């Protein structure tokens, strides 16, 4: 799988989950401050990432994933792709 596709898949999950335009989903976009996520949205997002990429994300790790870029980096590292 190419780098592009992980980014695209992450972006698609975010757009579906939060109902935002893909143009808003930039690497440094903050889920709460820029994309208007509330606390339930954040939990659901993590659940959606877990499902999309077939991994378990601990609550501790999830709390650090507050921007789009951090999620992309995290998932690349976890799936062993760069």
């Amino acid at each position, binding site marked *: 799988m190419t780098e592009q596709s992980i980014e695209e898949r992450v972006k698609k999950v975010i757009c579906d989950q939060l109902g935002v335009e893909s143009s808003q989903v930039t690497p440094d976009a903050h889920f709460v401050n820029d994309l208007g996520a*509330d606390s*339930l949205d954040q939990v*659901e997002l993590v*659940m959606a990432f877990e499902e999309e990429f077939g991994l378990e994300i601990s609550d501790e790790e999830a709390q650090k994933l507050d921007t789009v870029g951090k999620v992309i980096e995290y998932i690349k590292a976890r799936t062993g792709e760069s």
Partner: protein
Amino acid sequence: MLLKDKVSVITGGAQGIGRAIAELFHKEGAKVCVCDVDEEKLKEVEKEGMKGYKLDVRKLEEVEKVFNEIVKDFDGIDVLVNNAGITRDNLIIRMSEEEWDLVIDINLKGVFNCSKVASKIMMKKRSGVIINISSIIGQIGNPGQVNYSASKAGVIGITKTLAKELAGRNIRVNAIAPGFIKTRMTDVLPEDVKNRMLENIPLKRFGEPSDVAELVLFLASDKSSYITGQVIRVDGGMVI
């Protein structure tokens, strides 16, 4: 039909109040999934055209397994009725730790387990209804029922919190507090206790399981779409 094709999970639905809820939902067009520990009674339920699942609500892992099975069988869960419950009565000085733990595990933790798993499923669909069967004893207390009253008051706390947590996802959560309903739970009470209770019921009769079921139906249907976080008594006026 008020619940046409609504996938409805009823815990402790093999007999008593839960069975009455299951049968009424079935009549109203719901896809009824009865979850209970009583395998014999589950067979009866299946003969009536509902689906039975063996489930002990005390075990989160088991709840996850069974609810995922239901999602596979029916594509989602629309309504959850947390009805499974037991009593183990004793005055506090005589009550054992086992009696306390067992009642809390089934009546309180069971509601947590099932609500946790179901709300995850409902959140994805952005709709759902949860109805918890509490008891007036959780509101007014009763000598000999320290475990039971604590569990049923706890269920009211769960109801109010989840109503607030899940409202944004279009999931309504309400509780029902029945008074004295004729089931095997109340059959075991001595006659003189029953008679004394009857004196305190303005409508001068004990409730039938169907009296509770009709209220559950209303709260599960769209007719109550603006009601959440409430505790509604069905008790013949016992508590006014």
